[in-house]
């Protein structure tokens, strides 16, 4: 009974936040949930030890990557499906990838491809919402408002932020170079919203938004200001939200002044060679900055990389821009993490909200196809060098055992040691499990 109680009300000993207090107040009657407790124990029994992944870097290829041209080619299919690209060998005998992924091909022994991911939401906004929250969108697909606050459901990064909390002086959940469209905290509240680096690291004048005092002021004046602020705030720390704000001021100040956090954000400290290896691209530099942030203790970095919605004349942009960017960023990131001994403790996932249609349309592009998408996993304790699942000969559907969105989320949480059967109450008192349904992808472990 104790177990069920704690899983139902995971407020721990912390001060209740307003939202949490609302949820608890709204509770009504909740049935005793012993199942989550049991699943939790089973999950831990299954891995037989502490989870390995301490952080996750989530490279989100927004718009829908054409994985049929990257990781799951169909060389024997008719030309209108096959496309122009050839398959090439990889460092794992028998595993083939598309010719433009030649860098990643060389490290195929360090990651695993999941070719049987499938869901049936073909919209960008609704699909992103589904993939990032595990919950089908209750709204129609439409204009992208870029409001990083999900109407109700927390995104994967917000869950990680809530469950694992910060590890060092950097925020636990970071988005770059802008908010992930569905990466918000939903009913978890702003405490678990991403810290958004509203700036693209590929820009030569890249600066994390608002992190540095205005340089027009100069160091002495900045110091003077902070000294004055401290003397004005010397009274006792208030309770409630104002008190939380005080701690956030402290954290913000730490972030501005702590050498390690400063160092983490300072991409210029990377050797030119490394920066080039990741690629002189937004995705590459974001991946590199992600590595620095993970080293500094960040739990979950969500990188938003757009322009994958290739309906028209897709191949020139795929082979000249999109694929090389992803190929460079992913291979450099995994290699770099490996060489630094960080790959075991860092999970890297690369996916979009959907794949693309197997049949090339009459505009020489591919359209939305959520039925199939290949997802890449590296590090964090997964078994590397594998290919999990397969699609049929046209790449239209998984041949067997489709892996759902819930399966992917549950697997990520499992690898990070998060009990994904835990339940929280929405403001109306409805219990929402961290992930509804789904199972850990066994082939990955």
């Amino acid at each position, binding site marked *: 009974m104790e177990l069920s109680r704690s899983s139902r009300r995971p407020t721990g000993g912390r001060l209740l936040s307003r939202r949490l207090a609302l949820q608890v*107040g709204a509770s009504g009657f909740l049935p005793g*949930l012993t199942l989550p407790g049991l699943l939790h124990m089973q999950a831990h029994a299954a891995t037989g030890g502490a989870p390995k992944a301490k952080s996750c870097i989530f490279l989100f290829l927004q718009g829908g990557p054409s994985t049929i041209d990257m990781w799951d080619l169909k060389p024997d299919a008719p030309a209108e499906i096959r496309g122009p690209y050839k398959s090439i060998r990889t460092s794992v005998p028998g595993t083939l990838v598309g010719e433009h992924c030649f860098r990643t091909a060389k490290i195929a022994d360090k990651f695993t491809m999941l070719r049987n991911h499938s869901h049936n939401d073909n919209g960008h906004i609704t699909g992103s919402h589904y993939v990032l929250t595990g919950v089908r969108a209750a709204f129609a697909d439409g204009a992208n408002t870029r409001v990083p606050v999900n109407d109700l459901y927390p995104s994967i990064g917000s869950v990680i932020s809530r469950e694992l909390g910060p590890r060092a002086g950097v925020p636990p959940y970071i988005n770059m170079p802008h908010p992930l469209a569905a990466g918000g905290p939903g009913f978890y509240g*702003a*405490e678990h919203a991403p810290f958004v680096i509203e700036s693209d690291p590929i820009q030569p004048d890249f600066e994390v938004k608002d992190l540095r005092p205005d340089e027009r002021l100069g160091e002495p004046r900045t110091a003077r200001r902070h000294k004055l602020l401290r003397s004005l705030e010397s009274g006792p720390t208030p309770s409630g*939200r104002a008190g939380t704000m005080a701690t956030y001021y402290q954290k*913000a100040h730490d972030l501005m002044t702590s050498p390690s956090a400063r160092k983490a954000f300072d991409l210029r400290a990377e050797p030119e060679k490394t920066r080039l290896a990741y690629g002189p691209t937004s995705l590459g530099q974001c991946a590199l900055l992600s590595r620095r942030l993970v080293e500094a203790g960040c739990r979950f970095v969500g990188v938003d990389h757009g322009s994958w919605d290739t309906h028209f004349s897709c191949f020139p942009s795929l082979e000249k821009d999109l694929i090389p960017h992803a190929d460079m960023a992913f291979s450099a990131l995994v290699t770099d993490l490996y060489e630094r001994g960080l790959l075991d403790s860092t999970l890297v996932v690369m996916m979009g909200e959907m794949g693309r249609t197997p049949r090339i349309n009459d505009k020489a592009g591919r359209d939305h196809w959520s039925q199939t998408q290949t997802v890449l996993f590296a590090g964090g304790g997964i078994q590397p060098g594998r290919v999990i699942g397969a699609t049929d000969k046209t790449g239209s559907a998984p041949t067997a055992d489709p892996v759902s969105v819930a399966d992917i989320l549950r697997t990520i949480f499992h690898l990070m040691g998060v009990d994904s059967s835990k339940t929280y109450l929405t*403001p109306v*008192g409805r219990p929402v499990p961290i992930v509804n349904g789904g199972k850990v992808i066994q082939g990955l472990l």
Partner: protein
Amino acid sequence: MISRMYPTGQFLGCALCLMAGWCVSARAELQVSPARIVLDGPESTHQILVNDTADPRQPDATRTATYTVANGSVARIDATGLVEPVAEGSTGVLVTKGAQTARLVVEVRGLAKPRPVSFEQQIMPLLTKAGCNSGGCHGKAEGQNGFKLSIFGFDPVADHLALVGEGRGRRVLAGSPAESLVAQKATARIPHGGGRKMVENSLPHRRLLRWLAEGMRPGVGDFVPEVRIEVEPGRRVLALGGTQQLRVTAIDAAGNRHCVTAETEFESNAPTIAAVDPRGLVQAGSNPGEAAILVRHMGHVSVCRITLPRPGVAFARPPENNFIDHHVWDKLTLLGIPPSGLADESTFLRRAFLDTIGTLPTAAEARAFLADTRPDKRARAVDLLLQRPEYADYWAMRWSDLLRVDRDAITAQGSVAMSRWLRRQFLENTPYDQFARGIVAARGNTAGDTPAAFFKALDNPEALGRSVSQLFLGVRIECAQCHHHPSERWAQDDYFALAGFFTGVGRKQLSTGSVSIMAEPGKDLKNPRTGKLVPTRALGAEPVRFTDQDDRREALADWMIRPDNPHFAHTIANRLWAHYFGHGLVEPLDDLRATNPASNEPLLDALAAHLRYLKYDLKAFTRALLAARAYQLAAAIPENLADEQNFSHATPKALPAEVLLDAVCQVTGVPEKFMGMPEGARAMQVWDNRMPSYFLRLFGRPVRASVCECERGNEPSIAQALHLMNAPEITDKLRARLGQARRLADSALEPGKLIDELFLICLCRLPNPGERAAMQGLFREAGTDRRSAVEDALWALLNTREFVYNH
């Protein structure tokens, strides 16, 4: 019925006197209830309650008394005071605690020829209490491992079929009940994902086996239906660390009562104050406060209120400005929480400005107020605030959040129209009942000066029914869309009956791109589960008959604003209370129900009555709120710091994003430029909720996707702190050529006066000696560079908690 009063002192107010059939011992100190117990049937049980009035710290002696059954072959009693039958007959029971004794009689019958077990009445509650039909297990939409029950057991017919009929009947074996899959899973004799839900040979287990052996009767209609439940005691004052056993009695339509304590679900809304275990034992924690113990049996709910006073506190009751103070002080006296003193004048003025009109007082306004010596200056200040146009701007914004004034949903024209209509209502102080009717029964062009666009944002009867219910009635009925509300009496029929009021909303597309909302003939809706038409009726009201000429919504509005409507006045009273006092008497503030009681029920009732008395004049009501001393209290003192729900002190409130941005603009003297708005427009006047603004997004502007106030995020974040400290946008405002800092720096004011001015501008007060010294140090350090000194001083003030919060 014997009623008894309890010893005076802090335990006065015990409601045990409600309990029936007390058996009083010779020394009149040990009381046992009931005096006579009848157990009818093999699995019937009865909870004894023992009360020792000689022990004021821990009067409940149910678990410390010893029970001696004269004839142990008739009945047995466990250490928790639960009586179980053994054989038919009658026996006396001696209850002993120390030297005190009391007696009761137990009669057992119905064992030889028991009534057959009814699935609906006797098995379903067991499944519910064990959590089998919960949302995490078999109750979820897809069931669990192939076995699905209706959530919280709202559909006994389907559940009976699932258990008995589905899976080719493999779950039940009448011939050997104990070998049934359901019995083996429940007792975890074979692996069960949910673990062991029943103990072998326990009452639930024995009843399950008997039901199986009797051939699994659905039992629908076999029993007189249960109409309500009672919990004893209904209210209790406990000492810190004390305990209290509860007893729950079901009452059927014929008035029969039987004890269902062992089959009831219990849950505390504040487990840190008072927790409750599955047997109904309340355990008080070590912090003073209040908790509601929610009790549920077969869809019926009741509440036991637990109060834990702070021991040994004495304080002088402050004066009462009006009825509000009376109720607040009553509560604080009961709990032993001393209120803070009166807030100083500056704090009051700043608080009243920000709360009422979302605007900071200017330095001139602050000075005038501080210099005013009239004794009623606070009331005068409030009167002036309520006449200002910013009052209408601010409240139109707040209601735009609730009425879903979302440009993406109702177009720019619709947003402008709604904002203008709202602003006019608050400017003219339209009585709230008429205001609500205007919205619920809105007609006309969505681009005209009407709230008709509400019916564009919400375009189907169900969404309208549940939104109107939450917004105006404080009833969150959406749970009942799919199942019986888990903590309320509302069922699916209530949900569709309410939605029926909105089936006659016609929407005609106009050539201008807007929509005309009009009344059309409506129809009653079907309950999708039963397939039956549900006559349209309001919550707890009789069905309404309509002709095709009626606008159904008018009938709903009539019912809503009737003086005897139990929801309407309470909901808006609580909403406004929450706005001015930082949190609701009920939280969440639009979730009013018996199982979520107000932290001060007499106060909420009095506020609702006052609002009706004022004929829903919101300005007059606001005047009453702000006149209360309770509103004018200072910040927490160590003695009441832990109090979060009894209004013993002021609570800092986060400023809404728009208000904070306007405040930054006001103190820096540099207005923000908003796309599509005239020069000098303020953030709270912006009708476009999608207007790109990093500041507003960062500080929690809502997306207006629901009618829930909770959507406005006011949680602090690191990024907020960084933005206020470092953002170039703010630096620019501080340095602006025509800004406040430059104006002051270029003035002839000597540093001391200048510092005073800055404090008045930002914090509405003068600096204390320490602050003045720190500021003067800054000016000395800066030497002749007055500009940078003023900028730095303003920067520091703008980053204080005192500036960023309304306190």
